[in-house]
């Protein structure tokens, strides 16, 4: 048998080039700062303060205006050895369960994306460390991974002692920022203020930790404190109920545990999935039909495309803001917010990357996720449509627009127009129709300006209501026509029929679509009333039997059509 010769040989590591590479992993400044804040959270800090120090002569609006970033925490702190370990690449992989850390690269990659030098001074059990610096220029000069260790001067001892006033804590400072191309510091601060409350909501609430941010331009202003924010507003969310939708509240559409088991035998804990639909932002404008208080509430949700999508949390910390889940969510669903709660146990199955900002869900899981979110997407679209219709609904009275437009349209039977006086049989039938109409008229004719009541037609004012929306219709039928002795035909439309609840109710009460549907139904009503009243050559009982069957068929067909075409108006 031949023996294969093997040897193990070293390869070159270009330390400075490697530093450049990890600095380019793809951080924006606010993301990098939050990665450093993660370390403070992991260190059980109760206070974290982030300061941006502007370079002399620079303003908030200038690009590359930051001279130094500083993050101070009162966490457990580090000894000199522990600081050195924190600077090592792929540092100490022994993280506790549900840690925010993963690969031990965050401090270096985030820090070097902000500047060329990372300094750490820490205090543990009351003992202040030396100042240790990870300096790209020094590494390039030495062509080796080295750090600079400096003993603190008496002034620095005072300075860092003031920053870390408790028995433990850490100061991380990054400078050498001038050579790195960054957005303006006002953008960085704005994004931090907008996002940190959402990113660290559970830590601010539960740990608890207070996080403050400030920008110093030769001064020392107060820190602006970050308030926790559940971007799904789940504490205010109502259970989904299409009949009592209120145009103000968030509605909880999904709150389930998803088992991402791929059938490969690995046991993975379930992932919590929540979904909430919010009202359209336009309803928060001053011209909307909502009250000023309600408008303010709606505006507070900040419903827009930037704040829509899936908010993915890993161990309680947001890692993806408004992810579109590989196209499952589209830009049109901007009132839908989804929350996915992962732990480090899902890292492999969801392929969480080194920055913990990106993940990749494979096709099988995406297909399942698509099905799980389908009903939430549909409900969110429905909410959007309801809000749109609500915005343009000027009357608030169903049937009013048709009654107005048809007030002068004759309802004559063309077969009878040329004939003389009607025979007695016809007069008796018309009398019977009028009496039948009386029985329903009071329950449906109108209810004044104050509003609607159950079982009553929703039409205010003095106009005779030709189309009335009511439950006073045989349950299988979509409509029933009547003839008032004085005003003529009116039609009651069944608000319990699925054709109404699925389609008609979604159309604004004065929209052309609604008017045309009402005109068709009303015309059928006129036809039925005139036929039953005037066709005296046919026994009335026979006519009634025919129309009863006709309505059973119409109602049944429309119910079936509705069942086959759910959400047709959303497409």
């Amino acid at each position: 048998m031949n023996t294969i010769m093997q040897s193990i040989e070293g390869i070159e590591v270009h330390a400075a080039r490697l530093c450049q590479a990890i600095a380019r992993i793809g951080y924006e400044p606010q993301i990098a700062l939050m990665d450093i804040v993660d370390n403070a959270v992991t260190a059980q800090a109760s206070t974290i303060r982030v300061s941006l120090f502007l370079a002399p002569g620079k303003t908030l609006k200038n690009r590359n205006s930051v001279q130094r970033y500083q993050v101070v925490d009162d966490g457990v702190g580090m000894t000199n050895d522990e600081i050195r370990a924190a600077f090592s690449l792929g540092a100490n992989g022994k993280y506790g369960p549900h840690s925010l850390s993963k690969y031990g690269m965050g401090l270096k990659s985030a820090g070097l994306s902000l500047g060329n030098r990372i300094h750490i001074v820490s205090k543990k059990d009351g003992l202040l460390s030396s100042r240790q610096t990870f300096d790209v220029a020094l590494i390039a000069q030495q062509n080796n991974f080295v750090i600079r260790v400096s003993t603190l001067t008496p002034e620095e001892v005072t300075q860092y002692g003031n920053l870390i006033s408790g028995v433990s804590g850490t100061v991380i400072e990054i400078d050498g920022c001038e050579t790195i191309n960054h957005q303006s510091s006002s953008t960085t601060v704005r994004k931090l203020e907008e996002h940190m409350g959402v990113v660290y909501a559970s830590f601010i609430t539960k740990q608890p930790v207070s996080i403050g941010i400030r920008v110093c331009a030769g001064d020392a202003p107060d820190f602006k404190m970050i308030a926790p924010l559940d971007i799904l507003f789940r504490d205010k969310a109502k259970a989904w109920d299409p009949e009592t939708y209120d145009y103000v509240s968030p509605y909880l559409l999904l709150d389930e545990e998803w088992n991402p088991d791929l059938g490969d035998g690995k046991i993975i804990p379930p992932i919590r999935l929540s979904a909430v639909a919010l009202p359209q932002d336009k309803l928060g404008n001053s011209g909307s039909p909502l009250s000023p208080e309600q408008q303010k509430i709606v505006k507070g949700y900040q419903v827009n495309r930037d704040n829509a999508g899936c908010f993915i949390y890993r161990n309680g910390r947001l890692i993806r803001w408004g992810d579109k889940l590989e196209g499952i969510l589209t830009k049109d669903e901007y009132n839908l917010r989804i929350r996915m709660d992962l732990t480090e146990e899902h890292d492999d199955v969801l392929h969480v990357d080194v920055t913990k900002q990106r993940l990749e869900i494979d096709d099988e899981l995406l297909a399942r996720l698509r099905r799980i979110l389908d009903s939430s997407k549909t409900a969110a679209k429905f909410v959007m449509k309801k809000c749109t219709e609500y915005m343009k609904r000027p009357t608030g009275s169903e049937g009013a627009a048709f009654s107005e437009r048809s007030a002068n349209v004759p309802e004559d039977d063309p077969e009878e127009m040329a004939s003389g006086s009607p025979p007695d049989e016809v007069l008796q039938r018309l009398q019977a129709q009028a009496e039948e109409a009386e029985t329903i008229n009071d329950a449906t004719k109108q209810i004044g300006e104050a509003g609607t009541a159950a079982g009553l037609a929703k039409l205010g004012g003095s106009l005779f209501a030709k189309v009335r929306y009511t439950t006073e219709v045989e349950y299988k039928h979509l409509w029933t026509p009547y003839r008032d002795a004085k005003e003529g035909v009116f039609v009651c439309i069944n608000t319990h029929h699925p054709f109404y609840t699925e389609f008609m109710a979604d159309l604004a009460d004065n929209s052309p679509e609604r008017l045309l549907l009402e005109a068709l139904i009303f015309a059928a009503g006129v036809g039925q009333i005139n036929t039953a009243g005037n066709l005296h050559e046919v026994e009335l009982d026979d006519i009634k039997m025919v129309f009863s069957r006709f309505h059973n068929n119409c109602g049944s067909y429309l119910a079936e059509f509705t069942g086959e075409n759910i959400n047709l108006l959303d497409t």
Partner: protein
Amino acid sequence: MTTLAGTIWGRLRTSHLYAVFKGPYIYFGETGNVPPVRWKGHLTSEADFIGKLKKVDPAAAVDGTPIFFVGIHIGVADDEPEPMQKIARRAIEAELHQRFSLDPTLVSPAINLLSTSPSVPVRHLFKFDKVNVADKVYSMIAKEYKSWLAR
């Protein structure tokens, strides 16, 4: 050998949800009749179970793997007004698809779904809790399927 091939009972024109299994494939559906009336289509129509299976796995569609049908009577859908019954069944069917997607392990190894979830009727409320009903239907289907697998 003579063995029982299955039994079915129930009244005509009543609401049912059902599942069809063959190997690693599963299909959910609903019908307003006793299920065999609908099941025939799943063995013959190109738009139903066997037709969809032919498209994704032609060999599995014709191999000797046994096929398993299970139907569940949905009394709460029958209790809805007649025009609403189909929509009620659709609502439960959509929820059943979601239950499966949340946790397909209940019916493993049949984890490949062939049916398409119907559009969710979000504008309608029913006298029953569709999530509870779908949960129960899913666990009944899973139990019957597992017990058939164990035979």
